[in-house]
């Protein structure tokens, strides 16, 4: 029978080699104690130093454990995160995140773009919170230029970044709900976010990569009737946060999977440079908006939400309550929004209004120079940090005096927070890896840049 089947043997490889080589998790027998120390997430500070490698359980042999691969294309990894897990039955022993699948060299691209174009580049890093990316970048450029931004622009920036924080946390609530099987939460979260995206579209013309905050101010003034739109967003979402409470906070299945799972202490969080809701969940009241105020955060009232146990549930509760606090800030912005310019009137930095170009030769020249060459920035280097929904978002710019940044480095909070994953997963169950990835909330566009 087999003789009649037409077949041919193909020797060449049909699938390209996808191994990441040394970046992957290796067997215990092939791992140095030093690396084992890192991979078990054993970065606890004991007597102010890292844990002694000899105190790690290395009695397990390779034939007792199993290394499995999760991702990069896995729906619960929120993008293209690849995790290699070493399991003993259902228990996770070692974890190694393998990243870089979305690396597009944005820092290198940033060196090729002028300061005017730079905002379009950085806004694509953390695609859930584009405003904070632009804000961090713009504040760094403004520090180098030594210019002040008009008060209205400051308040617009503050309001927009808080609205953006709400939308980012809503997406987090949605995806976290989905990871835990609450698909209705996913629909609700994305439904509410739609309100915000519609307002972004009205204001900036775009829904996701806004390019709204630019060096010198913001791209456009708020549209007519913006107060009504913003208040509708605030009222709707504030009321709905209590529905989420009903749906999730008191829900026994949800609580079982969140409470007490994957705890972290403050010392571990600080040692791992973790920031944002992850750090606050361990009880450290560190929020750059309060601790090192930028924009006008020292003039508005809000509470810094702090957890106690550093577990999944704390991280959930912090994000839910931060939505409410952000709404509080947005309401104050609506009340106290000052009048005035929405961008600095320095013609060397901001383009002239369209009408001026028709009547003024000077305006035309400025416009031409800005969009061909860009503005020159004094020599220097500067680091500016803002509190993004995920933590400290820093931007380090080195200028050589030209119209393009000599070096632009973005300190991405997700990239750093991802280091906490091996620690959080250690000793947990396989099914909890999903909730850990979810509550760490990495945005892969930002991790890989």
């Amino acid at each position, binding site marked *: 029978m087999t003789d009649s089947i037409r077949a041919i043997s193909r020797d060449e490889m049909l699938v390209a080699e996808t191994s*990441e*080589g*040394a*970046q992957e998790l290796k067997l215990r027998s092939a791992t*140095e104690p*030093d*690396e084992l*120390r*890192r*991979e078990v997430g054993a*970065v606890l500070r004991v007597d*102010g*130093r*890292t844990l002694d490698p000899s105190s790690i359980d290395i009695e397990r042999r390779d034939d007792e454990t199993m290394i499995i691969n999760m991702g990069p294309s896995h729906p619960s990894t929120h993008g293209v995160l690849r995790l290699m897990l070493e399991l003993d039955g259902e228990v996770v022993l070692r974890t190694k995140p393998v*990243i*870089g699948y979305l*690396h597009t*060299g944005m*820092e*290198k691209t940033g060196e*090729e773009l002028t300061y005017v174009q730079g905002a379009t580049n950085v806004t694509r890093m953390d695609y859930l919170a584009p405003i904070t990316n632009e804000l961090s970048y713009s504040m760094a450029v403004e*520090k*180098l230029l030594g210019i002040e931004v008009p008060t209205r622009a400051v308040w617009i920036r503050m309001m927009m970044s808080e609205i953006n924080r709400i939308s980012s946390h809503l997406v987090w609530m949605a995806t976290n709900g989905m990871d835990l099987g609450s698909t209705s939460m996913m629909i609700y979260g994305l439904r509410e976010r739609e309100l915000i995206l519609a307002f972004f579209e009205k204001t900036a013309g775009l829904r996701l990569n806004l390019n709204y905050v630019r060096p010198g101010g913001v791209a456009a003034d708020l549209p007519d009737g913006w107060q009504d739109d913003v208040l509708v967003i605030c009222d709707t979402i504030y009321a709905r946060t209590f529905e989420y409470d009903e749906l999730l906070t008191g829900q026994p299945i949800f609580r079982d999977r969140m409470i007490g799972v994957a705890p972290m202490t403050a010392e571990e969080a*600080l*040692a*791992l*440079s*973790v*920031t944002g809701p992850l750090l606050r969940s361990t009880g*450290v009241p*560190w929020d750059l908006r309060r*601790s*090192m105020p930028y924009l006008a955060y020292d003039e508005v009232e809000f509470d810094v939400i702090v957890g106690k146990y550093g577990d999944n549930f704390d991280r959930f509760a912090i994000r839910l309550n931060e939505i409410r606090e952000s709404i509080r800030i947005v309401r104050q912005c609506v009340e106290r929004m000052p009048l005035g310019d929405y961008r600095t009137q320095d013609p060397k930095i901001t383009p002239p209004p369209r009408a001026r170009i028709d009547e003024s030769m000077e305006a035309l020249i400025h416009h031409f120079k800005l969009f061909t060459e860009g503005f020159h920035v004094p*020599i*220097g*280097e*500067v*680091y*500016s*940090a803002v509190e993004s929904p995920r933590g*400290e978002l*820093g931007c*380090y710019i*080195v200028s*050589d005096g030209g119209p393009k940044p*000599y*070096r632009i*480095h973005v*300190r991405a909070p997700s*990239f*750093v927070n*991802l*280091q906490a994953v091996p620690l959080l997963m250690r000793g947990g169950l396989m099914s909890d890896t999903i909730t850990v990835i979810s509550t760490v909330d990495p945005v892969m566009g930002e991790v*890989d*840049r």
Partner: protein
Amino acid sequence: MIALPVTAPAGVVTAEGLDAHVACFPTREQYHDLVASLRDSGFEMCADLCAVDYLTHPGRQLPDGVVPERFEVVVNLLSLSLKQRVRIRVQVGEHEPAVETLFDLYPGTEAMEREAFDLFGIIFLHHPDLTRILMPEDWEGHPLRKDYGVGRVPVQFKEAPGPR
């Protein structure tokens, strides 16, 4: 001038940065000790670590006594208790781009140092797992170096160039 909470070890040049952060310019030998003494005096967190390639910008402003080199490793430490930042800029030569790792002081620098190694080729001595992190393991060259080309988009209907 903002004072450092700790007297910098003898020989370490300090200066005030543009953004009101103190900048320290240790040599490669002083680097690890300086960071250790800063950590013990209240800088609990290493917020950021990155590298800069000054190949095409040699005329940068540095305080007296600092010998400019091609690479610079820039570390931003953060003190939560003092609400203060300090920046450490250590010069790293082109021929032997290696500095001591900060992993034993701040385990959170692990991924950042891997990134600096991946994109600039700076070796962090005694780092537990110095492999590439963003680029594939078999990639040649270090993309963020200034002598590394930007690459180009291959034109359709032309023989595609190599990976870069």
